[in-house]
C-alpha cells in the first residue's frame, strides 16, 4: 500500500463539482450540481486520511463506514463501495444530494480542521448514481416469513422501513395518500436538486425486493390503523406520515390572493408539474416580485422554483441572520449565486391589500438578535419604530410545518401535546404492533434522520414479530 497519507500529502483543494452556470440554471429545472466524474471522484477520494477514530462515521446519523467506502473508491472497487454504503443507507443517491453534510459527516471530518473537509456527500452521490446506472441493487436471498407488514407513507422513513422488513422476509405493502410515492422527496424537493428519476429508481429497487406500493390510499380514512391489524391481516404497521401540515403566519392579510404556503407552491410545481402548465392541468400563481418568508430548505426551494418559473425578483425575508439560517449551506450559496435577494433580520407583520383582494406589499419590521432562546439561537427582537413597506405581489410562507392530523383524528394512538405520535425508544406507539418514525414523531427533520428512524422501527418490528436469523448481508 502507498505511504500513509498526511494532511500535507493529500490534495489540498477540495475537488470542485461541475455546476450549471448560475444565470443559465436559474431559468431551467435541470439539476444544478452535475456531480463528479470518475477522475474527479478518484481525486477527491485521495483526500481522506482514513482516520483511526473515524469522526465522520459518528457524524453520520446512520453511521456509514465512510473511510471504508472511500478506500474502495481509491481501489476502483465502485460496486464494493456501493455495498458498503448500502449496508446502512438505502438511498445514497438521495442523501449524497440532500444531506446537510456540513452539520453531519463533513462537519466533523478531520481534514476540515485545517482544509476544506473531504466531500463525502459528493462521493456518496457519485457511487449512488453509478449504482442506479448499472443496476447494482441486487435482490438478496431472502428467506420468506409469513408476516405481512403495512407501511403508511412513502417518504424516506417509510421506504427505509419497507426495505429492511422486505429483507427480513416480510410481505410489505406501502400505502401512500398521494398518487406518486416518495413523500417530500417527490412533492417538496425540486428536480434541480433531486431529479424525479432518482426517486423512481429507488422506488423500483424497493419493488425488486418485493415491496408493493399502493398510492391514492389515505390511511385513516380509507381504512384505519386499527383495521389494518384487525381486518386487513397485517401483523404490524409502521407509520411514517411526515409533518406536512403548513403553518401560516397568522398576520393580517394572510388569506389575500397571492399568499400561499411553500408546500402549495412546491406541490403544484413538483408533484403536479405545474411548470408545464397547460400541458399539465394544474396552474401555479406567479407574481413578479415574490417575497418568501423563512430561510430553511423549504424557503430556498420555493424561491428557486419561483425564479425558474419566471419571477422578476425573488426575495428572502428572514427574522434572524444568515448564520442562523437552517437551510443547507450549499442551497443558500446557490440561491445567492442565482440572484435571490436576502433580507436578513427582517420580519413581516402584515400583508397589505391592493384594494382588489390581492397582495400589494408587506409591512415588515427590522430585527436585532437578543439573548439566546430555548433552541440556543439568539432570539430576534423587533427594533421599535423600524417598520417599513416592502413592495411585492406574491408572498410565500415557508415558516415550518406541523403533524398531519389525519392519523390522530382516526385512531386511538397517543399523541404528544404538539400532535406528533408518542413512541418509546424502539419507536413503538401506544398500540401493540404499531410503530412510527420520521417527521411524524420528531417534527420536521432531515431525510437521513427519517431513514434512520425507519430502520430503527424495522428492527423493532422484527423483534416484535419474533423473526430470528435475519441475514445481515443485503
Amino acid at each position, binding site marked *: 500500500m502507498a505511504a500513509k497519507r498526511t494532511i500535507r500529502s493529500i490534495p489540498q483543494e477540495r475537488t470542485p463539482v461541475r455546476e450549471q452556470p448560475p444565470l443559465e440554471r436559474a431559468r431551467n429545472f435541470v439539476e444544478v450540481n452535475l456531480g463528479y466524474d470518475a477522475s474527479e471522484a478518484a481525486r477527491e477520494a485521495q483526500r481522506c486520511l482514513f482516520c483511526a477514530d473515524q469522526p465522520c462515521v459518528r457524524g453520520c446519523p446512520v453511521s456509514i463506514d465512510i473511510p471504508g467506502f472511500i478506500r474502495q473508491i481509491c481501489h476502483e472497487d465502485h460496486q464494493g463501495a456501493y455495498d458498503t454504503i448500502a449496508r446502512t443507507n438505502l438511498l445514497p443517491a438521495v442523501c449524497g444530494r440532500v444531506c446537510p453534510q456540513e452539520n453531519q459527516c463533513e462537519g466533523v471530518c478531520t481534514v476540515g480542521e485545517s482544509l476544506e473537509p473531504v466531500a463525502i456527500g459528493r462521493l456518496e452521490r457519485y457511487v449512488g448514481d453509478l449504482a442506479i446506472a448499472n443496476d447494482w441493487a441486487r435482490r438478496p436471498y431472502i428467506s420468506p416469513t409469513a408476516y405481512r407488514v403495512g407501511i403508511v407513507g412513502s417518504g424516506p422513513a417509510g421506504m427505509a422501513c419497507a426495505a429492511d422488513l422486505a429483507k427480513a422476509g416480510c410481505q410489505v405493502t406501502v400505502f401512500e395518500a398521494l398518487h406518486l410515492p416518495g413523500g417530500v422527496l417527490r412533492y417538496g424537493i425540486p428536480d434541480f436538486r433531486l431529479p424525479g428519476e432518482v426517486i423512481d429508481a429507488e422506488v423500483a429497487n424497493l419493488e425488486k425486493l418485493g415491496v408493493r406500493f399502493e398510492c391514492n390510499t389515505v390511511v385513516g380514512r380509507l381504512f384505519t390503523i386499527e383495521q389494518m391489524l384487525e381486518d386487513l391481516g397485517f401483523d404490524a404497521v409502521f407509520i411514517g406520515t411526515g409533518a406536512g*401540515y403548513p403553518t401560516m403566519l397568522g398576520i393580517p392579510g394572510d388569506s389575500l390572493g397571492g399568499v400561499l404556503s411553500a408546500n402549495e407552491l412546491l406541490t403544484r410545481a413538483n408533484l403536479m408539474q405545474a411548470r408545464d402548465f397547460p400541458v399539465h392541468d394544474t396552474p401555479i400563481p406567479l407574481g413578479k416580485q415574490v417575497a418568501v418568508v423563512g430561510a430553511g430548505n423549504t424557503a430556498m426551494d420555493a424561491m428557486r422554483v419561483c425564479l425558474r418559473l419566471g419571477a422578476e425578483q425573488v426575495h428572502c425575508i428572514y427574522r434572524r441572520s444568515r448564520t442562523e439560517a437552517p437551510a443547507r449551506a450549499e442551497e443558500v450559496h446557490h440561491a445567492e449565486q442565482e440572484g435571490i435577494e436576502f433580507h436578513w433580520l427582517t420580519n413581516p407583520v402584515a400583508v397589505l391589500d391592493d384594494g382588489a383582494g390581492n397582495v400589494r406589499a408587506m409591512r415588515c419590521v427590522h430585527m436585532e438578535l437578543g439573548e439566546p432562546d430555548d433552541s440556543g439561537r439568539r432570539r430576534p427582537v423587533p427594533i421599535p419604530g423600524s417598520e417599513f413597506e416592502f413592495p411585492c405581489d406574491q408572498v410565500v410562507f415557508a415558516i415550518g410545518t406541523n403533524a398531519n392530523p389525519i392519523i390522530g383524528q382516526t385512531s386511538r394512538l397517543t399523541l404528544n401535546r404538539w400532535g406528533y405520535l408518542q413512541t418509546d425508544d424502539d419507536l413503538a406507539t401506544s398500540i401493540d404492533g404499531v410503530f412510527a418514525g420520521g417527521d411524524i414523531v420528531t417534527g420536521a427533520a432531515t431525510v437521513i434522520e427519517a431513514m434512520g428512524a425507519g430502520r430503527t422501527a424495522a428492527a423493532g418490528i422484527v423483534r416484535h414479530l419474533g423473526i430470528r436469523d435475519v441475514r445481515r448481508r443485503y
Partner: protein
Amino acid sequence: GHWASAFPIVEREDISAVTFSLTVRHPLMAKAARPGQFVIVMSHAEGERIPLTIADFDAAAGTITLVIQAVGKSTREMQRLCQVGTSLHGIAGPLGIPTPIEASTRSGAPPTIVCVGGGLGVAPVYPQARAWHDAGARVMGVLGFRNRNLVFWENKFRDVCDELILCTDDGSAGTQGMVTDGLRLALEAHPETSEVIAIGPPVMMRACAEVTRPHGIRTSVSLNPIMVDGTGMCGGCRVRVGGEVKFACVDGPDFDAHLVDFDDLASRLRRYGEEEADAMAQWETVCRRAE
C-alpha cells in the same frame, strides 16, 4: 404510473347538458364512505387533482357515485372522456370529517333536520338526508334548481324525506322561488327544527345562514375552496371560520355556517380565474383540432 390502481367507471348518467354522474367501482371506499365526505380525482396522469363530493355510495355493490358539473377544463374534459368502460387515473378518499349524525335530540325526541340543496349542491346533500332518515330523524328536503329541465334525483329524495319542497327560479317545477324561500317555508312549518344543512354555491349557503341565524338554528355548510392534495399538506384550502384559519380538507369540509367568513371564501375562489380561462381556451383549441 404502475403505482396507481385502476378505478373503473361502471355507470354514467347525463343529467343535463352540463351535469353528469359517474359511478366508480371501489369496494373499500364504498365501505368507508360517510355522508359529508369527498374524494380527490385525477382523470388522467397529467390531470389536476380535483375535489368532488361523494354523492352516493353503496357498500353492497362496492361503488361510489359522483355528480359533476362541467364548469372548466378538468370537468369538461371528464364529461367528454369519462365513459363506462374507462377508468379514472386516481381517486383518493373518502376525505374530510364525516357529518355527525345523532339519532335523538337532547330531549330524546327524534330530531327534525332540513336538508337544503341548491343546483349541484343537491347531490352532496343526498347522503346526509339519507343518513338522517336512516337514523330516525324527520327529514325535510328543500331542493332548488334554475328550471325543471335541471331537476335531478327528485325520487331519490322523496324516498328519504318526510316532506320535500322543490323550488325553481322560473316556477317551471315545484314552487317559484329560491331555496331560501323554500327554507323559510320549511322553518315556518317546523319551528322545532334542530339543524339545517345547506349545500350549494357559496352565495346560496351564505343566504341560508342568514335565514337561520335569527332563529339560532344550528346550520352546517360544506365549503368548497380550491384544493390540491386534499390531505392537509398544502394549505390551499384554508378558510376562515370563527376568526380561525381551518383547512377545509382535514378540518371540514362541513363548518358552522354562522361562523364562516364567506367574503374570504369568495375572494379565494377567484384566485385562479386567469389560469382557468387559459387552460380552457387551450383545451378547446385542441378539441376543435381533434374534430
